[in-house]
């Protein structure tokens, strides 16, 4: 950057900060004039600060069509590709009113497509009050040409933390959304007590998201700031989240939403009074084997790991990636016998996407494939498979969304 650029950048910064000041002032004035506002009215207040929205949602439907959900300038957009990502349809806007949508790091819009073609979306809306938000839902019953007015799934009426949503469908009409919820903590504080961590709540629908049942609590005392994961198994929807054991041991729990049956699935003994911002990933394959990936800095082990759970038995943790390269934020996808894991590393210069694949339900694995790089800001990679093809979807600031196919002849 030469001196002239530096000056221009500085001037821009000054201008931006002046604009920000002006908007803050106008906002303050409007709020004062309007008096007390309700939670729903808050949504229409313009943002004071800009957030990165690189985190996208992606899925493959039954016909192999690739769907993307992405946030730009406070709008949620959906587009799809019938040719594996070479060409995409013109993006269709989901929300009817712009809103602050969490779409960075561990928060991203979720998208799923039912067998009848219904397109379902969930996301977390950020409200102006610190650490508060709403879990939102919308769907399309005309193949993604138009979307229903977004609705808020959390039904507690509180302005509190509702975020880190995860969405799963059975494909035939059942829909589940789980999220981290601050209502129990707030209620405990109002009663003069304390509450460790957050809670995990969910809402279910039996008609592809036309109506949702009342919210139910799956667990209390969860980690506050890690993504949740949700898959639909033959026994119903199963969630994975970073739980709190004792006062501050942040290991993972798995639970079935229908039965409420819960079990601890990691024994890393990560005791920390902090926000790891690093959750787990979950997938179920054609034989019903559950595949999970997670990160820990526990006493028992440190790093990024994979394990599979078959008939209730968990395999030993398998280490993923290079700790020197900060391997992290893995996700897993599975269909038929195919299992695909992708994660992100930092090689000292920039980000690298690594992936491994199994064609026998996670019994044996390919060596890692270095799929792509980026020198700038980037999302975490999203693996996708329909049992035949496998690909990783990755968004980065400089390169945009890339669809990275896995080499079918990768060495074992």
């Amino acid at each position, binding site marked *: 950057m030469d001196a002239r650029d530096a000056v221009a950048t500085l001037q821009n*910064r000054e201008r*931006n*900060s*002046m604009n*920000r*000041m*002006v908007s*803050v*002032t*106008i906002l*303050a004035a409007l709020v004062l004039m309007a008096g007390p506002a309700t939670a729903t009215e808050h949504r229409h207040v313009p943002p*004071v*600060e*800009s957030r*990165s929205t690189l985190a996208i949602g992606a899925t493959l439907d039954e016909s192999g069509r690739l769907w993307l959900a992405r946030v730009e300038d406070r709008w949620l957009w959906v587009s799809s590709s019938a040719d594996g990502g070479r060409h995409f349809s013109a993006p269709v806007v989901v929300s009817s009113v712009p809103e602050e949508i969490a779409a960075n790091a561990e928060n991203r819009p979720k998208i799923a497509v039912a067998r009848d073609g219904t397109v379902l979306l969930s996301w977390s809306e950020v409200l102006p009050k610190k*650490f508060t938000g709403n879990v939102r839902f919308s769907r399309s019953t005309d193949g993604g040409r138009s979307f229903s007015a977004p609705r808020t799934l959390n039904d507690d009426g509180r302005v509190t933390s509702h975020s880190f949503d995860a969405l799963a469908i059975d494909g035939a009409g059942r829909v589940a959304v789980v999220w981290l919820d601050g209502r129990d903590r707030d209620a405990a504080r109002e009663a003069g007590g304390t509450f460790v961590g957050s809670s995990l709540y969910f809402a279910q629908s039996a008609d592809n998201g036309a109506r949702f049942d009342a919210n139910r609590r799956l667990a209390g005392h969860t980690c*506050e*700031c890690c993504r949740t994961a949700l898959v639909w198994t033959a026994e119903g929807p199963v969630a994975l989240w970073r739980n709190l054991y004792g006062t*501050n041991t942040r290991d993972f729990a798995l639970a079935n939403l229908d039965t409420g049956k819960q079990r601890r699935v990691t024994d890393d003994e990560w005791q*920390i*009074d*902090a*926000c*790891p*911002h*690093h959750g787990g990933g979950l997938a179920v394959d054609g034989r019903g084997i559950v595949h999970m990936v997670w*990160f820990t*800095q526990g006493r028992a082990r440190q790093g990024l790991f994979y394990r599979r759970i078959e008939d209730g038995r968990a395999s030993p943790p398998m280490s993923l990636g290079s700790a*020197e390269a*900060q391997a*992290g934020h893995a996700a897993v996808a599975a269909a038929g016998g195919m299992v695909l894991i992708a994660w992100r590393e*930092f090689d*000292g210069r*920039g*980000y690298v996407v690594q992936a491994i694949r199994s064609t026998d339900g996670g019994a044996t694995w390919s060596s890692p494939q270095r799929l792509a790089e980026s*020198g*700038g*800001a*980037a999302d975490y990679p999203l693996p996708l498979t329909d049992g035949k093809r496998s690909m990783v979807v990755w968004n980065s*600031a400089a390169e945009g969304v890339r669809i990275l196919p896995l080499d079918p002849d990768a060495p074992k």
Partner: protein
Amino acid sequence: MIGRFLCGFVAVLAFAMPVRAAEPAAFTVDSLAKIKAQYAGRPFILGMWSVSECSYCIDELTMLGKLARTHRSLPLVLVATDTPAQGAAMQKILTPLGLAGVDSWVFDDPVPERLRRAIDPSWYGELPRTYLYDGEHRRETIVGILSEQRLRAWLRRHRVAN
């Protein structure tokens, strides 16, 4: 015209508002070296935090703010892992906690790993995280909330502040 009117409006409001701290400085790969040079031969506290999604950071900052009121010239350096765009939001948090005057920095790199590596290659981004540097700049790492008890003991041991 409208711009000028708004500027005037802002100026009037600015006078009516309490004194606000300066914007945080941009933290880049060589910033830690600068901070260490500034504290050459002296102990200091390097506290990492974030504006968004880190309620534990607020608890730790509250404790640090309390301590800063009783320990004049507490050698505290705060680094937020957010972006310079969140400078105003940072000050909004620090000011009521009594930390407006603290040496405050904010990550300025699209790849935060680059900055984390410059500070501590074993740090994956968990927050809060604190480094207690002694006079020879050997450091203790505290992962998660730093307790007031531990910090007070460290301050006594290194004869810091007051």
